[in-house]
C-alpha cells in the first residue's frame, strides 16, 4: 500500500511483559516519528528519526521506552516491563522531509 503501516494493530500485554511495535513508513520518507495517544487526548510526541539517526527522543516517558530504525526504513518501538499507564494508541508518522506528516493507523496497546 501507499500509506504508513503499523503492526500489530492491537496488542494486549500483561503488566511486566515487554512489547515491540513495528512501523513501516512510506517508501523514501526520510523522517519518522512516534507519538502516543491516550484515550480522549491528542497525540503526544515521543521520538523522531531522520534516516537511521534518532535526533530527538525527548518525549520518551521513561528508560523503559526504546526506539530504533537501524536501516533508515522500518522502525520498532519497544516498551520493557509494561505498566498500566502505558495503555494507549501508538502512532507512527513519516514524511519526505517536509512538514506534511502521514500517520499510520496506530497500534492500540492494552496493559492488563
Amino acid at each position, binding site marked *: 500500500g501507499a500509506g*504508513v503501516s503499523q503492526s500489530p494493530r492491537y496488542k494486549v500485554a500483561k503488566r511486566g511483559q515487554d512489547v515491540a511495535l513495528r512501523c513501516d513508513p512510506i517508501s523514501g520518507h526520510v523522517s519518522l516519528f512516534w507519538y502516543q495517544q491516550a484515550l*480522549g*487526548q*491528542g*497525540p*503526544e510526541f515521543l521520538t523522531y528519526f531522520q534516516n537511521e539517526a534518532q535526533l530527538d527522543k525527548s518525549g520518551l516517558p521513561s528508560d523503559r521506552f526504546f526506539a530504533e530504525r537501524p536501516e533508515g526504513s522500518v522502525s520498532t518501538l519497544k516498551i520493557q516491563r509494561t505498566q498500566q499507564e502505558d495503555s494507549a494508541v501508538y502512532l507512527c508518522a513519516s514524511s519526505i522531509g517536509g512538514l506534511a506528516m*502521514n500517520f499510520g*493507523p496506530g497500534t492500540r496497546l492494552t496493559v492488563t
Partner: protein
Amino acid sequence: QQQVKQSPQSLIVQKGGIPIINCAYENTAFDYFPWYQQFPGKGPALLIAIRPDVSEKKEGRFTISFNKSAKQFSLHIMDSQPGDSATYFCAPYNTDKLIFGTGTRLQVFP
C-alpha cells in the same frame, strides 16, 4: 500539550452549518500551523495548514484564519456534511514535532 489550548471540546451542528474550532498557543517559536482530522480507529490526517506570514488560507470547504498577534488560529468548515463528523486537532509545529491540542469532537447531523 499545555502549550496549546483548543476549544470547544465538542460541537454539534446541522448539515450545512459552519462549525468553528479555535486554537490558542503560547510558544512564539511555532512556525507552521496545521489542522488534523481523525476518524475512530484511524491515524490523524492533515486537513489544511498555514504559515505565520499569511492571515487566511482556504482549501475547498476548509478555511484557516490566523491571528499572529493574538497567538490564535481557527478552522472554519463551510457547508458541513455528516461525513465531516470526526475529531479535529490543531497541532502547531516547532523544530521537529507537532504539539497537538486536546481535540474537538464534531458531530454533523443530517
